[in-house]
Every structure is written in structure tokens, then in C-alpha cells.
């Protein structure tokens, strides 16, 4: 267990203490923070480790949300529904990955972006199953009080974050992680030395999708009503990238910090600059990319326990 990973675990543990500091609203924001961190960590597997700039996060978030929503509507208990979404997303992503991951760079980015559009339109048109443009109602999981509900969902998202972080740590220390590293640096050479890059990439893509899907499931149960434009929103694909860039590509600790800082910025901007918040966000992104291309982690020179690599 490296020091970095330890730091990450400690950070996550600290977040768990949020209910002691704030009421239902703070828990709501905390839940979103955990969700963003899950996005960033998951994206990092395929974007940071493997070097494939994926824009498919929103596709699997939405897929997971709808899968869980539909299962819940059929009476399946929440935990089973979420695990079901997780497994479905993993398999789906791995399968799609074998086809899409043959593309590199720009082309892969566009293909993954198109996935979001395709999934959204498919859901939009399957009106009988998903409610189409009219959205999907999800039954209230429990009739309990506000605080109990908020705490429940906060801990559910937090637990998922912990699992994701642990898996990411295991991956980075394992043969898979090593293989992804090789693929990022030089895929052709990796293939030549006998690394089964298709398998590794597909697994990575699958892993990057499954936790996002599960997060989508928890999200759906949390908000009780989802519609295609909400959950298949391109921004859910772009934000993890910005978070990862902010925190430092490739580093799990970095991306999680990036996620939290991003959320903080987003909240501050949203509250104070109502009319121009997306413009301010744009300015932030540009500043970030021009002046801090390696993320917050790089602010401390000489601390490259993991060099943030170019993608």
C-alpha cells in the first residue's frame, strides 16, 4: 500500500464524517461530491491509466440509472438492482470496448461521445419500457424522514466510492495496471511483446463503466424521477475529464481531489454568478488548461510518485 493510496483512503474516510457537520442539504452536496469522485476515478482507469480519452461516462451513467430504475419499478430491491446495473454496465462496456477501442485519439473520443447520443435516443424511443421523453418514475425506496433518507443515500454513494477507490488501487498495483501503463506509452510495442491489449483495454473500459453505472443506479433511486436529457447529459462526460485534468491525470488521489475542488468551484460559481455561471466555468477550464496542464498535483514539484503523463 503506497503512501499515495493511504492518503486517498484517509481522505475518503474523512468524507464519511460529513453527517456530523451538516444537515440534509450538506449531505445532498456530499452525495454529489462522492458521485463526482466516482466518475473521476472511473474515467481515470481508461483515460489516465490506458490513455484513451473516453467521453462515454454519461452513456453508462444514464444506462445504469435507467437499468436500476426499471428494475426498481419491477419490485427488485435496491441493492440487487444496483449490483445488477453494475454487472450489466461492465459487460456492455467490455463488449463495446472490443469494437471501439480499436480507434485511437480523436476518433475514439468521438466514438465514445456518440455512444452517449445513441444510448439517449434509444432510451428516448423505447417509450413503453423507459417512458421515453416523458421520463421514468421511480418508487420511493423508503418512507422515512428527510435526514434518514439523505444519510442513507450519502452512505450508499460513499460506500460505492470506497469500493471504486479500492478497485482502482488494486488495478494500479496489478498486472492489469502495468499492462495499461504499457499500452498508454506505446501500444504497438506492447502488442509486440505479447500483451493482449484488446483484452486489457476492454476490461479497463468495462471497469470504467461499471461503477459509473452503479452510481447512476443510486442516483436514480435518490431523485425518483429521471428523463433521458437529464442523465445522458454530455456534461457528465466532460466534467470527469476536467476534474482529472484539474487534479492530475493518472493519479487516483489527484483525480479525487480534483473532483472535490471542482464541485466546490461549481457550487460557488452557481450561487454567485447566476446568469454567467457556465461562462465562468469556461474561463476556469481555460485557465486550468493553460496554466496548470498537469493538475493540482503538479503544484508541488518533486513529488512525482506518479508522473502525470500526456494522453
Amino acid at each position, binding site marked *: 500500500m503506497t503512501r499515495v493510496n493511504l492518503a486517498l483512503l484517509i481522505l475518503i474516510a474523512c468524507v464519511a464524517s460529513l453527517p456530523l457537520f451538516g444537515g440534509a442539504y450538506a449531505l445532498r452536496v456530499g452525495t454529489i461530491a462522492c458521485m463526482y469522485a466516482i466518475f473521476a476515478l472511473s474515467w481515470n482507469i481508461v*483515460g489516465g491509466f490506458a490513455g484513451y*480519452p473516453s467521453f462515454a461516462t454519461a452513456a453508462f451513467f444514464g444506462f445504469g440509472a435507467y437499468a436500476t430504475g426499471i428494475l426498481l419499478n419491477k419490485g427488485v430491491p435496491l441493492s440487487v438492482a444496483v449490483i445488477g446495473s453494475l454487472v450489466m454496465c461492465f459487460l456492455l462496456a467490455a463488449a463495446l470496448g472490443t*469494437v*471501439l477501442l*480499436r*480507434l485511437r*485519439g*480523436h*476518433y475514439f*473520443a*468521438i*466514438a465514445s461521445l*456518440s*455512444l452517449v*447520443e*445513441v444510448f439517449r*435516443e*434509444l432510451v*428516448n*424511443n423505447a417509450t413503453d419500457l423507459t417512458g421515453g421523453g416523458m421520463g421514468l418514475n421511480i418508487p420511493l425506496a423508503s418512507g422515512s424522514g428527510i435526514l434518514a433518507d439523505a444519510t442513507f443515500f450519502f452512505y450508499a454513494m460513499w460506500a460505492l466510492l470506497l469500493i471504486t477507490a479500492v478497485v482502482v488501487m488494486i488495478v494500479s498495483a496489478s498486472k492489469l495496471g502495468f499492462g495499461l501503463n504499457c499500452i498508454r506509452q506505446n501500444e504497438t510495442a506492447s502488442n509486440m511483446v505479447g500483451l493482449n491489449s484488446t483484452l486489457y483495454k476492454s476490461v479497463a473500459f468495462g471497469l470504467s463503466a461499471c461503477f459509473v453505472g452503479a452510481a447512476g443506479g443510486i442516483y436514480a433511486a435518490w431523485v425518483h424521477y429521471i428523463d433521458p436529457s437529464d442523465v445522458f447529459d454530455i456534461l457528465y462526460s*466532460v466534467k470527469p*475529464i*476536467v476534474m482529472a*485534468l484539474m487534479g492530475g491525470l493518472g493519479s487516483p488521489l489527484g483525480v479525487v481531489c480534483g473532483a472535490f475542488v471542482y464541485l466546490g468551484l461549481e457550487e460557488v460559481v452557481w450561487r454567485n454568478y447566476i*446568469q*454567467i*455561471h*457556465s*461562462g465562468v*466555468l*469556461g*474561463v*476556469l*477550464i*481555460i485557465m486550468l*488548461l*493553460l496554466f496548470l*496542464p498537469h493538475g493540482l498535483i503538479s503544484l508541488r514539484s518533486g513529488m512525482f510518485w506518479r508522473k502525470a503523463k*500526456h*494522453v
Partner: protein
Amino acid sequence: MLAVQVLINALVLGCLYACIAIGFSLVWGVLNVINLIHGSFIVLGAYLAWGAYQWLGISPWYALVIAAPLFFAFGYLLQRLLLNRVISAPVLVTLTLTFGLDLILNNAMIYYFKADYRKLTLSPPTGSISLFDVVVPVDRLIATASALALTGLLYLLLRRSKVGRAIVAVRLDRDAAVLMGVDVKSIYAIAFGLGAALAGCAGVLMALIFPISPLTSSAYLGKAFVVCVLGGLGSVSGALAGGLLLALVEGIGSTLIGPAHATTLSFVLLIIFLVVRPQGLLGRKGFE
């Protein structure tokens, strides 16, 4: 006959799509930058045309002439001052940067112009021509003709002028172009400026046909994407081919399986092309 009508609609629409995509394709092909601001440029051009017509009484045809140099300058400066810094950065960085720029531009437009939809209605209205049961609106025809003229102009520019040849050279082989004495930095800026000018002009033409609002920028961008992938990057003929193919698929798909599925179909087609034939219909053969 329905089939013929659908076909004619698609042909006309396809040229418009090509017009939307050509600037995008140029920037992507030459600078290897996916310019996510493209959609917003188009909308800005449309506003220019609308404003000129509404307040100054300037007909859109003249607006074209005004738009081109304005947008060229805007794009040139943008590239020179901002995008040039990340020109050799990885895909992710340039994509996210242009995404950020687009957020700013789009937000500014919503702030100043409001999100209400505006319409440029020419008075007197131009009506439609009807030939053997097939109806074609005149304004679309004119816009299509202008779109073709624009792309033709670009083609000539790239083929005949020194700057144009330099752009093609950079597109084909950047390093060799440097060796040949081409000032790549300046070419990048010119190409981006050109892309912006084309987007602005496309916007002026679109103002005649579609409603104008900052909210439509993502729709234009989406079309540009698909056209580029289908037709092939960086070539005028590619953009035309891609535009026609997209319009045909949408039109026929709409008629056979309903409009709701037509959008899905176009993106599925995109993915299929990306996987099976990423260089598009007409591939990377430079500008021809």
C-alpha cells in the same frame, strides 16, 4: 411521388449540411483540433445576418461579405493568442479547451441575445417552386446554391492560391512543410480563421432557413461531426459526400422508421463508419 420528394429534400439539405461542416473539417484536418466552438460560430453568424437585416436592412447576401472577414479575424486572433499554446498538446487538452471556449461564447450569446428563438423572414417571402408534384422552397435552393458557391470558392482557394497550397501542404505532412519553408504557425492561424469565416458564412445562410438561438449550436456541431466522419476529414469533396450521405440516411430513415429514430440512425452510422472506415467515404487525400 414521395420517394422523389424525399430525395430532393435530402439533396438540398445535404448541401446545407456540407456547408455547416466544411469549416469544421478544415480545422480538424489541418490543425488536428476538434473545434467545439464551431456550432457557436455558426449561431453568431446567424445573429449577424439577422441583426443586419432587422436593424440595418442589409440583405443576407451582403451580410455574407461582412461576415467572412469579421469571423476570419476573430478566428485568426483566437488561434494565434490562445489555441496556439496548446497546439501540440494531447487530444484531451485541445478538446476540453475548445469546450471551455464554447461555454464562454454560448453563455455570452445567451446573456446578450437571450435564448428566445428569432427568425429571419425575408419580405417579400420567396415561396416555393413546384415541379411535377415535387415542391422545393426557394430560400433553401438559394441557400444551397450559395453553400455550393462557398465550398467551390474554398476549393479554388486551396488549389490555386499560395496560401491555399501551403495549407494543404501542412495538412498532408507538417514536418515536410516546415522543411519547405512554410510558416506553420501562421498557416495554422490562417486555417483556423478560414474555418471560422466559413462557419460565420454558413450561419448567415442558416439564418434564412432555421430559427436562430444559441440553443441550436449543439445541433449544428453534432451535424458537423457526423458529416466529417462520414465524408472524410479536410477535403471539400469529403464534406459534400458526407453531407449528402447524412441527409439521405436521415430522410430515408425518417420515412421508413420514423423521425424519432432518424437521429439514432445517424449516430449509429457514425460509429459504424468510425470502426469500419474511419477515414470516411473520400478518405484523406488532401484537398481535391
